[in-house]
């Protein structure tokens, strides 16, 4: 192939948009429409792989578009952190497309064309976020992601969907305008640049009080990272069809949030400055509280998707903690957890969707004994649960390991305890589900008549992501190398 890496980078963002147009045009013919979705996701994944190889080969890949405001324009650069996000998102988009074809057809959903259009636009937004070279570009795609996922969240069009959408959009848009945008403008005013710079953009003369306030604004403004008290949108968004919840709320939207937090911590503040700021400690405690409280709330949810949603809130807190610890282990753990959690959580959501389609069950108490009829689904559920908890032989082990290392490195004993307790809690809220499914015990077992495994397309997707959780345990090197490379960019190193 003779296309340059720069072109590939731009194609990653533009192709899904073109696909959206193609989907709109071919909406009448479901096979063709889904063919376009599938082909595009394949091509985008291939492009990201090529870019990954290019990055590994030491190439510097950067593209500038036009300037929107003098001095501020679209700019894209590829660095390891963004690469992790792009790899995960493009791969899981591919898998989710396979899954949703099975799901949407089996469920006879309405407005499928709109669904696939918004899906494609959202992925374009994710790619834009992953590759953005400055905060301004990132913000634009961040907002585009919010708006393009709104129709997905409210897909059902019911009163409940409207309410959920209201919370979803209300929180995400409000915080991003009131806090995130303010923080960006303030950064632009104080530092004079929004370029992602290894080591941060603020020079030594910066007033730490101002920087501390800006940091708080950032962490609250990036509410996609679901730090309490701005996490309410995540459970609210669970009214969406399951593939949407899976991709957008286990991968795209929430990961865009924590990715942005990481990006801001590393490339806007720089970990040296971050350690000095008086507000870092406060935010760390807040993130710790989020981790713990969300786990506790998750235990009380009977609706499977709601339980998973709160589990996500809790796990996102881990990544935010990793970023705010401002140590190399914390950063490595945080960025690896983006990938590990994505694989685990998307599998769990896929399973939840499969159960809904095949057995029409959404409450955990109704799922006793369902493992007999849906063994593959529930086995996958078990593996993914292990990964979320962070025990071998699953990928989640590594990221949690590094996160704990990070708390040790920085002597944050309190946080270490919080992380350990939360892991225990996640055992308590996740493992009983597959356990009861296989061993219903003496309780009232589910009425098993007429329940069979999920549609094949969905099942394939589930198996792939569950296997992914296992592979990431055995073979985490590429991911680790990328995560470790984040801090090796000249100027970022903390020593």
């Amino acid at each position, binding site marked *: 192939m003779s296309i340059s890496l720069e072109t590939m980078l731009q194609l990653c963002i533009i192709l899904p948009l073109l696909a959206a147009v193609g989907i709109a045009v071919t909406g009448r013919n479901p096979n063709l429409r889904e063919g376009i979705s599938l082909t595009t996701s394949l091509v985008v994944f291939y492009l990201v792989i090529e870019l990954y190889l290019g990055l590994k080969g030491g190439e510097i890949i950067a593209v500038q578009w*036009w300037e*929107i*405001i*003098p001095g501020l324009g679209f700019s894209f650069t590829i660095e390891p952190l963004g690469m992790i996000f792009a790899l995960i998102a493009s791969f899981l988009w591919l898998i989710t497309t396979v899954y949703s074809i099975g799901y949407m057809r089996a469920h006879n959903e309405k407005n499928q064309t709109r669904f696939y259009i918004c899906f494609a636009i959202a992925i374009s937004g994710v790619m834009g976020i992953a590759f953005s070279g400055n905060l301004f570009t990132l*913000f*634009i795609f961040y*907002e*585009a992601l919010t*708006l393009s996922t709104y129709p997905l969240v*409210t897909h059902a*069009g019911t*009163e409940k*969907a*409207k309410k959920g959408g*209201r919370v979803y*959009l*209300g929180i995400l*848009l*409000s915080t991003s*305008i*009131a806090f995130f*945008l*303010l923080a960006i*403008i*303030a950064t*632009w*005013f104080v530092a004079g640049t929004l370029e992602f710079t290894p080591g941060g953009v603020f020079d030594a003369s910066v007033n730490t009080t101002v920087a501390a306030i800006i940091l708080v604004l950032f962490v609250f403004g990036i509410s996609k990272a679901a730090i309490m008290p701005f996490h309410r949108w995540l459970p609210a968004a669970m009214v969406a069809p399951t593939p949407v919840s899976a991709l957008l709320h286990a991968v795209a939207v929430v990961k865009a949030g924590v990715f942005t937090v990481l990006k801001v911590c590393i490339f806007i503040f720089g970990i040296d400055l971050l350690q000095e700021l008086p507000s870092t400690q406060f935010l760390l405690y807040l993130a710790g509280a989020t981790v713990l409280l969300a786990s506790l709330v998750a235990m009380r949810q009977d609706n499977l998707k709601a339980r998973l949603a709160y589990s996500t809130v809790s796990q996102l807190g881990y990544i935010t903690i990793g970023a705010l610890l401002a140590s190399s282990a914390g950063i490595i753990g945080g960025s690896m957890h983006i990938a590990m959690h994505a694989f685990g959580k998307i599998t769990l959501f896929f399973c939840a969707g499969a159960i809904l389609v095949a057995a029409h069950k959404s409450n955990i108490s109704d799922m006793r004994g369902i493992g007999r009829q849906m063994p593959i689904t529930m086995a996958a559920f078990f593996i993914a649960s292990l990964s979320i908890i962070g025990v071998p032989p699953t990928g989640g082990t590594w990221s949690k390991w590094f996160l704990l290392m990070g708390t040790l490195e920085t002597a944050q004993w309190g946080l270490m305890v919080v992380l350990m307790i939360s892991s225990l809690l996640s055992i308590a809220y996740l493992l009983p589900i597959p356990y009861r499914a296989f061993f219903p015990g003496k309780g009232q077992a589910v009425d098993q008549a007429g329940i069979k495994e999920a549609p094949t397309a969905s099942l394939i997707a589930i198996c792939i992501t569950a296997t992914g959780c296992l592979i990431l345990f055995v073979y985490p090197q590429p991911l680790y190398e990328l995560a470790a490379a984040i801090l090796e960019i000249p100027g970022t190193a903390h020593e």
Partner: protein
Amino acid sequence: MLAHLPVLQVLLPLMAAPLCLFLRRPYLVWIFTLIVSGLAFLISISLLQQVMVSGTLVYEMGGWSGPWGIEYRIDKLSAFLLLIITAMSTVILLAAQTSIQKEIPENRQIYFYILYLFSFTGMLGIVSTGDVFNVFVFLEISSLSAYALIALGKDRRALWAAYQYLIMGTIGATFILIGIGLMYQMTGTLNMDDLARRLPEVAQTRTVFAAFAFFIVGVCLKLALFPLHLWLPNAYAYAPSIVTAFLAATATKVAVYLLIRFTFSVFDLSFSFTALPLQTLFVILGLIGIFVASTAAIYQKNVKHLFAYSSIAQVGYMIVGYSIGTTMGLMATLLHLFNHALMKSALFLALGAVMYRIGSVQLSSFHGLGRQMPFTMAAIVAGGLSLIGVPLTVGFVSKWYLVLAAIENGWWPVAVLILLGSLLAIIYVWRIVEVAYFKEPVAGTDGVREAPMALLMPVWLLVGANIYFGVDTRFSVDMAQAAARSLFGVSP
């Protein structure tokens, strides 16, 4: 010919207005008006180019030089405004004939165009002239024709709204006239340039203070600054859709122009901001305006009312930017002037399309419109996003500069309040979205189809402009910056 452009800009529509009577058929009159407005647009482009190349243009009426004769004076600010007014007018006129067919009886349609041209003339005159009494005359031309235009509305309440506007507008105009009269009394001149030279000599007299105060209050009535906004919602809501779009896009902008012109060019800035506690007053009134009007917008049942209140809030933003009193602040105001014209013309024209099909713009009649009129509703959503200030729309660019100007001046709380204000916009825009996309259509509206192309095209032209100037801000930012700098006397 080129040398006469400053006066032709105003004369052309003025002369064209009576000619409409001879054309008799509304369709022909529409074409004629459209051509006139298009020509005015071309003239304004040419004027803008000349001003950018060779600086301020001064045209002496009948060869009598100022301060004895009447001068037309086109500087960067005027040229920018002329361009906004003529461009908006031309695009809005594209939709006029289709829209007024449903809203204005056939026998009054010709009068509509005549009044429209007069109002257009008045606004162009205010912006072009360098003579303060001329300002008053043109203000009356544009206002009187605007009252009549509003009264053309099909709704009987339009008469009452026009009457309200007439009373308030006349009070405003009278105040302005008193202000101008007092200035003349103290200086013996009506020429702006001359006034600027002579006013400082008598600046510390009570008469000049009074003149200034009268003038400012009069102008604030015209630009609907809180709490002098009471005439606006009804006037916008019950006027024919085209009139609303035209007035929303231009009328308040011209009033903001007058405010800037008098406080910067006639009185100098140090006087304007120190004689009265104008800065404090404006920033407080502007902010209150933003919050009160946005909150009021949330509770409106008529969508035209809703956007009318939003207009009052947007005026608040302009006034806040202006009151910061820095080049950046003024630039943000001018930028928002331009951007807001784009947003509101797109929104009100789209409402015109809804009016065309449904015959009502009550929120309750928007049920299910997302499916029945997808392109019109998409335009309203796009305009609404621009109003909120989502990136890649013009609203974002305005907000960016406004906040930056506030921060630059150390006004952090104001920056926060500006952003909080736009959260209210999310609520009122989303009320429409939810009704249009989540409610089932009301029984009996099965036949509702998408609006005709003649309406959709101008609407989408404006929506396109909302996006284009949100993505490529070179023109709008450069113009606003150049105008702001020249007013502050900074060489570009």
